[in-house]
């Protein structure tokens, strides 16, 4: 699907390419260095955005991409270097300067406020007012009209008054984009906008990006998915461990070259399963007729054999995450039976699941993934402590030595990039936070581990490490269930794939039978 898009787009934009170089930069960052206590996040980085281009920022987890962008938005102050906007030099951007120069950022962790409407989200902090008898009043009518225009423009079919809490993640992202469009941003920064979108939604996003580009806006695009980078980018800047590697036209690049630049070695995309292997009948986990109380998944049955990895495909909202929540005890079931390693399970809450040896790596790391004020170490030990303690996880003392050992073990195993494990987890880059969550569950020694979008925001190198980890777990007799919106991910790691459609199981494929087309067809019929 991306391929199609690529061809169409190149035909449209090939004429613009030469012009670009001669135009004036919208923003420029020269020789930027950023130090945090104990960490040099960036050193000597150059970056600029031209009108009408998509400038891709590429690098591994923790390379410094988000940090660089936070200096553009004014959230961070560079330790050294010069910032330029519209030809004017500044030692730093304040949020004010950034806003005045039309810079708008869509953060990796979306900042849409659930409790208020789309319209209020768009105008938050910048309410339009009108003067009535000399008094400023909030101008709801104009704001509503403007919101409607912007929503039409980007193709979000929701009314301005809809509460943001009712929106799906892709829709929330559209709201963020709408925010940028509503204020006529000249530079729109998208930090990993596609990490929680399906292929179709990504295509829609790309169409919007293309339209914005043609209006002369400069887009900064951060993603770990190289096919997207190749499809949407005009130029690419590569960072590696905070060092500036260089800026290149995408036309001179290919995926392999990019990987080599950002990782420093080659990574082979290999299929990890053996389609001809016979797994026998040693069933380690079985779910029978699971229906959630709220009916968001219905009559689901499946079996998982020893050594197998079972994947779950389908559109967002098809009920995969909902099923996993039910298995994990986080949502009540109406009917359903589960057996793990021959034992019948009776799970009422996540604590029961943890005790029974089930782990769930949730898809939404900021909301359900980690304890935000805790250190990396405290997060890594959390599940293990709970599992070992009695009486609802309340007994037992803190064991500093064990904490240290577990933290170092998982830090090495997951390749968590940090200065020390005593750092607060929120200081980590998005991808590294995800690795901490994986490490937390690994440390609890699970018998069945459920991965819901496990590689969201994870760089190519680590991704293949995580796939290998899953395979190694399966080989050790640990059950592995994977929910993913990235079809290549499922196709290259799973032995069998179950497809969901509208809360129900709508097909099951062995790795021999599974193709992208087959999965899409089962998901949409």
């Amino acid at each position, binding site marked *: 699907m991306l391929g199609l898009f690529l061809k169409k787009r190149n035909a449209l934009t090939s004429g613009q390419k030469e012009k670009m170089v001669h135009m004036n930069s919208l923003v420029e960052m020269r020789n930027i260095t950023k130090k945090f*206590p104990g960490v040099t996040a960036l050193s000597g980085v150059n970056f600029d955005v031209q009108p009408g281009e998509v400038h891709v920022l590429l690098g591994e987890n923790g390379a410094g991409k988000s940090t660089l962008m936070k200096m553009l938005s004014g959230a961070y102050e560079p330790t050294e270097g010069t910032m330029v906007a519209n030809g004017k030099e500044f030692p730093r951007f304040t949020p004010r300067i950034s806003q005045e120069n039309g810079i708008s950022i869509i953060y990796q962790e979306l900042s849409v406020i659930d409790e208020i409407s789309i319209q209020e989200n768009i105008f938050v902090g910048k309410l339009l007012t009108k003067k009535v008898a000399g008094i400023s009043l909030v101008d709801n009518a104009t704001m509503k009209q403007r919101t409607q225009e912007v929503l039409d423009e980007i193709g979000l079919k929701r009314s301005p008054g809809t509460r943001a809490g009712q929106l799906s993640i892709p829709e929330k992202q559209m709201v963020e984009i709408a925010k940028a469009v509503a204020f006529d941003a000249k530079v729109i920064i998208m930090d990993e906008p596609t990490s929680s979108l399906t292929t179709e939604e990504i295509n829609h996003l790309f169409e919007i990006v293309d339209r914005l580009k043609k209006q002369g806006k400069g887009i900064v695009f951060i993603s770990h998915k190289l096919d997207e980078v190749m499809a949407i980018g005009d130029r690419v800047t590569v960072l590696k461990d905070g060092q500036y590697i260089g800026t290149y036209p995408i036309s001179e690049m290919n995926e392999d070259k990019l990987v080599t630049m950002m990782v420093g070695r080659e990574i082979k995309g290999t299929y990890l399963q053996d389609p001809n292997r016979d797994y026998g009948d040693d069933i380690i986990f079985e779910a029978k007729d699971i229906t959630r109380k709220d009916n968001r998944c219905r009559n689901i049955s499946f079996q998982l054999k020893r050594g197998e990895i079972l994947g779950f495909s389908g559109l967002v909202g098809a009920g995969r995450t909902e099923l996993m929540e039910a298995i994990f005890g986080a949502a009540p079931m109406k009917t359903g039976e589960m057996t793990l390693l021959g034992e019948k399970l009776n799970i009422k809450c996540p604590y029961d699941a943890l005790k029974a040896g089930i782990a769930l790596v949730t898809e939404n790391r900021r909301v*359900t*993934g980690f*304890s935000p004020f805790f250190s990396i170490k405290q997060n890594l030990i959390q599940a293990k402590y709970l599992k070992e303690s009695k009486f609802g996880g309340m007994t037992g003392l803190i064991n500093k030595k064990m904490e240290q050992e577990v933290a170092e073990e998982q830090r090495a195993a997951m390749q968590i*990039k940090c200065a020390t494990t005593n750092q607060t987890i929120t200081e980590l880059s998005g991808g590294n936070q995800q690795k901490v969550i994986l490490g*937390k569950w690994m440390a609890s020694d699970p018998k069945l581990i459920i991965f819901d979008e496990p590689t969201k925001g994870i760089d190519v190198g680590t991704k293949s490490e995580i796939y290998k980890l899953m395979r190694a777990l399966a080989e050790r007799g640990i059950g592995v269930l994977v929910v993913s919106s990235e079809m290549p991910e499922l196709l290259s790691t799973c032995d069998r794939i179950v497809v969901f459609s509208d809360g129900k199981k709508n097909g099951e494929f062995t790795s021999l039978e599974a193709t992208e087309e087959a999965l899409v067809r089962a998901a949409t019929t």
Partner: protein
Amino acid sequence: MSKQTQTVKPKKTFSDYWSSYSTVAILVLMLIVFSALKPSAFLSTNNFVKIIEQSSITILLACGEFFGIILGGIDLSVSSTMALSGVVCAKLMLAGWPPVLAVLVGIILFGAVVGAINGSLINLTNLPPFIITLGTQAIFRGFTYILSDARSVSGISTGFMQFVGGKLGGVVPMPIVIALIVALILIFFTTKTRAGRNIYALGGNPSSAYYAGITTKRHQLLCFVISGVCASLAGMVNIARLGSAEPNAGTGYETYAIASVIIGGASFFGGQGVVWKVVIGGLIIGVINNGLNMVGLSSYYQQIAMGALIILAVTLDRFFGASKDK
């Protein structure tokens, strides 16, 4: 292999020091201010002993309140719990119970039950602690009046009064000894036990705590039980000091307790805070109360000054504490 993992020695900034010691700094500042204003009356051993004695009730209440606030909630019922358990304990002694038994049942056990009522109501209704404890504050106070016939309850054993209200070795007021023992136990609980760690996780982000496998309702219940027991102990200290149980005891003290916790640097949004600073917070409230008395301000102005100082202390804290990396 990379610049990332090279550890540059972190330089401690003013805001780092401030966030560690701000509470102590405010206490010292208050001491200096009042010493300068009224050295004769304020700066005496007698007065300091008095401050400490007066503070012990605030400290006990604040230690309990801390567990409401750490959850991102609040416990408004501590002041009523303090009065109710005081009356219950006094009534038991009046009925001829030996003081030790009266304390075990009328204070410790009763406080736990009262806290469990708060916690269970919150768990069952899923309503914010603010609403539930606002309700139970009135309910507990009502029971206090009914039980005491709206009169002060005397008949408290003299042995109990001399021990709990007396001085250890003739010097250190027993109330502060009790308050500090409670604080030490809670410091241990919050920093060294897994249940304590879980409570921080729960306050910091309830849904991630739930998905990590923390039994959220049980921990929430525990927090309110702790709060109830602490408030009851404050009630015990109060009746020992006064020699009788007053049905209107502690009215409005929840404000002092909340202020101590916030001045002690705990976050109103939950998940952040430490017990020892809350103890200092309680002392600060004690110093302000006493100092304003010494300066001779009428009690109306005292209220105004108290409120202003609380706002000032918290503002200072946020101002210096939040200036990191901006």
